[in-house]
């Protein structure tokens, strides 16, 4: 059976020579072509540049997305981000496509910082050592606690950790 609709979406993080992170988000499907580009500045992870472009058949509310996205310049990737971004970019007169895109860009920034730790863990072959390394990672990143099945209270990873 042929597909009647197809969506492709890519988000990428690329460190720039000046230390900022360039984040590129692109979506293309039968009805919409959209791009969001952010520049994020460590260590505060402040969004210092934001651009958006929507083409093909964007919904009425999204036709002003290019002007709207500038509202998130100055916002930092951190606690409360979801609420702040939705407050600035979604809701009446906003564009949920761009709000979701910005949140996905910010998530990609977090995963950019997460990846090296996971790669280090892959070098450990002893299961007990691996478990200890995972527990240490949870202790160092309290936001992981109860974030998924692996870090729920009853998970073997969480045994003995009082978090």
């Amino acid at each position, binding site marked *: 059976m042929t597909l009647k609709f197809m969506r492709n*979406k890519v988000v990428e993080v690329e460190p720039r020579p000046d230390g900022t992170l360039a984040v590129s988000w692109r979506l293309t499907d039968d009805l919409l072509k959209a791009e969001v580009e952010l520049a994020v500045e460590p260590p505060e992870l402040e969004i210092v540049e934001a651009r958006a472009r929507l083409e093909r058949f964007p919904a009425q509310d999204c036709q002003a997305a290019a002007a709207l996205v500038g509202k998130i310049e100055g916002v930092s990737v951190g606690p409360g981000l979801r609420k702040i971004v939705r407050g600035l970019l979604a809701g009446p007169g906003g564009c949920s496509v761009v709000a979701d895109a910005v949140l996905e860009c910010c998530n990609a920034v977090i995963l950019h910082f997460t990846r090296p730790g996971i790669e280090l863990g892959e070098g450990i072959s002893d299961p007990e050592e691996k478990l200890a390394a995972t527990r240490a990672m949870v202790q160092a990143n309290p936001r992981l606690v109860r974030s998924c099945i692996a870090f729920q209270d009853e998970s*073997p990873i969480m045994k003995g950790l009082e978090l």
Partner: protein
Amino acid sequence: MITFSRSQVIGAEFPDRETVRFTGIQEDHIYGMEIAMEVRIRDGQVLKIEGNMKRYTNFVCPQAVPVLQAAVGMCLREQGWDRRVMREIGRKGCEHFAEIVIECGRCLDQAVMARDLAAALQADPHLNQDEYLRNWRKEHAFLGNAL
């Protein structure tokens, strides 16, 4: 060079007038997951779901596969449906599965709109597509998703 990249691909087929069948793939430098799900168009109810976890970070992750069944019966049009998916499938299971289910949900009305536009274009190759979609959105405003 690129230090983190994620791709999502969502496909929609229509086994009958009432049902849309989604396949969703998410691949990134860390995780690799797939979802297949069927949704009733009328009310956005998830009828069936399966998941495949290809690449993950620890031995507990695969226990999230059966948690996906909590999506069956959920309505992808009710207020806060995406937060519910993240809570029930993401937190209690795997947030990357939840991300794919949410993207499929976002595609629900877009897929129906694309199907209808393609059919209208077949009937009238000179159709004004902008106007057709503007009317479609007006007529389907009751659906509630971001059209």
